[in-house]
């Protein structure tokens, strides 16, 4: 299990490759990998977005992510989990979050990647501030349920 909070841009696919290569003991054992990547869009709530700042509560972030992953690994049959999250200044098309889950069977991998993402969105102390094209800045007030909002 690994949790990384990064202040600079990252390549999610390289992170997966790196982690998978280093976790040699999984080789031949995992039949399923479920990966979620959250990427910064250039629009939100009907406005064009030119940048974003992600603030977090360093320390509590890691504590809460650790709890979420531990809970998931107790509830489901999972071999390994990698979570990476950006903080600091982001631009459209920058990856924000990566959740990767390795398991023997696919049901567990699907369930756990979704469980971790939903728990991260509701419990881990990150906050996003959007910079609009007009240079106005606004805090995102809450996360949605993950489907298209009726705007």
């Amino acid at each position, binding site marked *: 299990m690994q949790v990384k909070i990064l202040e600079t841009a990252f390549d999610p696919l390289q992170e997966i490759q790196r982690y998978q290569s280093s976790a040699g003991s999984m080789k031949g054992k995992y039949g399923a990998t479920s990966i979620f990547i*959250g990427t910064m869009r250039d629009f939100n709530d009907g406005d064009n977005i030119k940048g974003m700042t*992600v*603030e*977090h*509560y360093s*320390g*509590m972030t890691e*504590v*809460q992510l650790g709890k979420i992953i531990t809970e998931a690994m107790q509830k489901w049959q999972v071999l390994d989990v990698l979570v990476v*999250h950006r903080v600091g200044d982001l631009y459209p098309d920058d990856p*924000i*979050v990566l959740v990767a889950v390795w398991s023997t069977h696919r049901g567990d991998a699907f369930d756990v990647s979704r469980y971790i*993402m939903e728990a*991260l*969105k*509701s*419990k*881990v*102390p*990150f*906050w*996003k*501030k959007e910079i609009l094209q007009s240079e106005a800045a606004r*805090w*995102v*007030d*809450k*996360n949605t349920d993950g489907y298209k909002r009726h705007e």
Partner: protein
Amino acid sequence: MSIKVRYFASLKELLGRSEDELEFVEVMSVIEVWKQLNIGIELPDNILAAINMEYVSLDSLVNKDDEVAFFPPVTGG
């Protein structure tokens, strides 16, 4: 012997500061910590609280050397 109090995101901007120190005199609740440090400012409805990086309710008790945090709903991911 003191309590460290931290504010994040929009709440930090609203208050114009990111942390306070409160001298520890006696055990008190989270909401009383807020009231002592933010006289006349009501805690906004949606604000969450943590003690030592674990979520707590506003009536949870704060002890010496605890770190208390107040912040708006999280919006990561």
